[in-house]
C-alpha cells in the first residue's frame, strides 16, 4: 500500500476511535463500525486500532477473531448466513443451502467470483417458529423455501439491498 493510502486509513480509523472515545470498553463497537466500513478487519486496520487505544495488537486481534460477525478475511458485499441449528434443520435448511449453492455456484464458506455474495452457516438466530431462516448482512428472512430464496438473492444481485417487511 502506498504511504498516502496508509495515512488516509490511519486518519479514518483515528476519527472513528475518537467518535467512541479511546477506552478499552469501546473496542467492540469500534471494530463493528470498521467491519461495516471496510467489509473486513485487515491486520493493518487492527494495528491502527491497537495504537489508537494504546493496547497490544494481539489483544485487538484476539477480540476480532472471537466474534463470528467480525471478519478478519475479506468477504462478499453481502454475507448470507443460513441458520443450521436444530429447528431450522428440522424445517429443511438443507434445501435452502442446496438452492443457494446451485444458484451462486459456491459452497458454504466461499465467496462468489464477483465478490458479491459469501455463503455461511450460522447458529440459532431466534427465528425457530418461522424457519428456515437466514440473515443477509443485517436483514432477516424467514419462512424460506427454495423459490423464495432465489427471489431474495436476485433482488440483492440487482443491487436492491432493502429490508423485508
Amino acid at each position, binding site marked *: 500500500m502506498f504511504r498516502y493510502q496508509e495515512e488516509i486509513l490511519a486518519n479514518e480509523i483515528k476519527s472513528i476511535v475518537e467518535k467512541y472515545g479511546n*477506552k*478499552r*470498553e*469501546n*473496542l*467492540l*463497537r469500534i*471494530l*463493528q463500525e470498521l467491519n461495516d466500513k471496510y467489509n473486513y478487519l485487515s491486520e493493518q486496520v487492527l494495528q491502527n486500532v491497537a495504537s489508537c487505544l494504546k493496547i497490544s495488537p494481539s489483544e485487538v486481534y*484476539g*477480540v476480532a477473531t*472471537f*466474534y*463470528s*460477525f*467480525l471478519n478478519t478475511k475479506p468477504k462478499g458485499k453481502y454475507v448470507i448466513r443460513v441458520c*443450521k*441449528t*436444530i*429447528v431450522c*434443520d*428440522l424445517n429443511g435448511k438443507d434445501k435452502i443451502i442446496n438452492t443457494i449453492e446451485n444458484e451462486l455456484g459456491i459452497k458454504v464458506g466461499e465467496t462468489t467470483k464477483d465478490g458479491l455474495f459469501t455463503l455461511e452457516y*450460522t*447458529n*440459532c*438466530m*431466534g*427465528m*425457530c*417458529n*418461522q*424457519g428456515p431462516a437466514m*440473515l443477509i448482512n*443485517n*436483514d*432477516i428472512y424467514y419462512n424460506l423455501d427454495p423459490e423464495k430464496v432465489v427471489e431474495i438473492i436476485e433482488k440483492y444481485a440487482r443491487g436492491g439491498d432493502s*429490508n423485508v417487511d
Partner: protein
Amino acid sequence: MLIDSKKQILFSEFTPGYGLSIALKMSPEKIIDIMIRSTLRGRGGAGFPTGLKWQATAKAQKTPKYIVCNADEGEPGTFKDRILLSDYSEKLFEGMTIAGKAVGSNKGIVYLRGEYRYLLKKLDKVLNRLRKIGYLGKNILNSGFDFDIEIVLGSGAYICGEETALIESLEGNRGEARNKPPFPTDEGYLGCPTVVNNVETFSYVPYIINKGADWFMEIGTEKSKGSKLFSISGDVKFPGVYELPFGVSIAEILELVGARDTKAVQVGGASGICISKKDFDKPLAFESLPPGGSIIVFNKSRDMLKVLKNFIEFFVEESCGQCTPCREGNYRLLEAVEKLERGECSINYLKVLRKLAESMKYTSKCGLGQTSPNAFLSIIDNFKGEILARPKKVND
C-alpha cells in the same frame, strides 16, 4: 383452561408509567421488598431470585452502579425475548428504570445480540419517545431521579448470554466467562456493582410494582410463582410464544400447540434436557422440570441421534475454548456421536463418555460447559433403543 387471560401478565394492558410512576414515589427499600416478596426468579434460565440480586447490588458500596439487560437470547429454540424487544420494549425499559431507582443506578445498558441488529432502529425510536415524554433521562416525571438506557450490540457469540461473559464483551474483551465470586452484584461492569437480568425478567417488574407481590404470587406453583413465556417450535401446528403459568405440563402444552405423534421434547434449549413420553405429565416449574424458555418438539419421524449431533455441533462451535472440560469434552462427545452413527460405538466406550459428561458438568468454568452434556446424557438415557447398536454403515 390453559390459556386464562387473568393469568397472563406480559401481554396484558400497559401504558408508560404503569409501574414507574408508582415506584418513583417509593423508597428503594420498599421496591426491593416488593420484589423479594414476589419471589420473581430470573427468566433467563438460571432462576436466581431477582429481588435478592437487586438487594445485593443496592447494598454494595462502590459507585456508579449499572443495570444491564441481557438481550443476548441465543439458546436454540428460544425467541420469546425477540417478541418482547420487538413489540413490548416499553415494559422492559420501564423495568430497568425501576431497577435503577431500587439499587441507586442512573445508567442502563441493553446488550442486544448481533443477530437482532435489525431491531436496533425500532428500539432506539422507543427510547427517544420515552425521553421526549419524560419517562427516561433527567428528572424522570419530576421525581429528581435520572436514568437513561443505551443499547450495545453483540457480534455473534452464544457464550455472551452468560452474565460474566456478557460483561467482558461490554468491556471490549473476548466473551470469556469470569470466575464467581466476585458476583456482578459486587464487581460487574467496569468493576462496579451491576444488576444483570433477562429481558423477560425486567418486563414483569412494572406489573409487580403496580399490582403487588401478592397478586403475582396467585399465579404458578408453590415454589415457582408467576407465569413464563415459552418459545415453542419444532413439529407442532402452531409454533410461537405462549405465556403460561408455572406448573403447566408438557402434555398440556403439546395439546395447545397442536403437536401430533410426539416422540420427544427438548426442554430448555440445547443446554436443557430431552424427555420422552414417560415424562410428559411432569409440570414445568423450577422444582420439577427446569423451565427454560424453549420447548422443541420432535415427532416420531425424527432420528434422535441426528438431533443430538446438531446440539453437540452447536456446543463445539460456541464453546469459548477457555477451559479444558468444555473445549475438549464437547469434541469427544461429537466423536462418540459420529461413532454411534456409523454403528461403531461400544457400550463400554459409552460408559466412559458418560463419566466424561458428568465431569464436564462439575468442572467446567461456566454454565455453557456445565450444561452442554445435558442433551447427550438425556438422549442416550431416554432413547437408548434407537441410538445404541445401530447397524454398521458401509458408506454414507
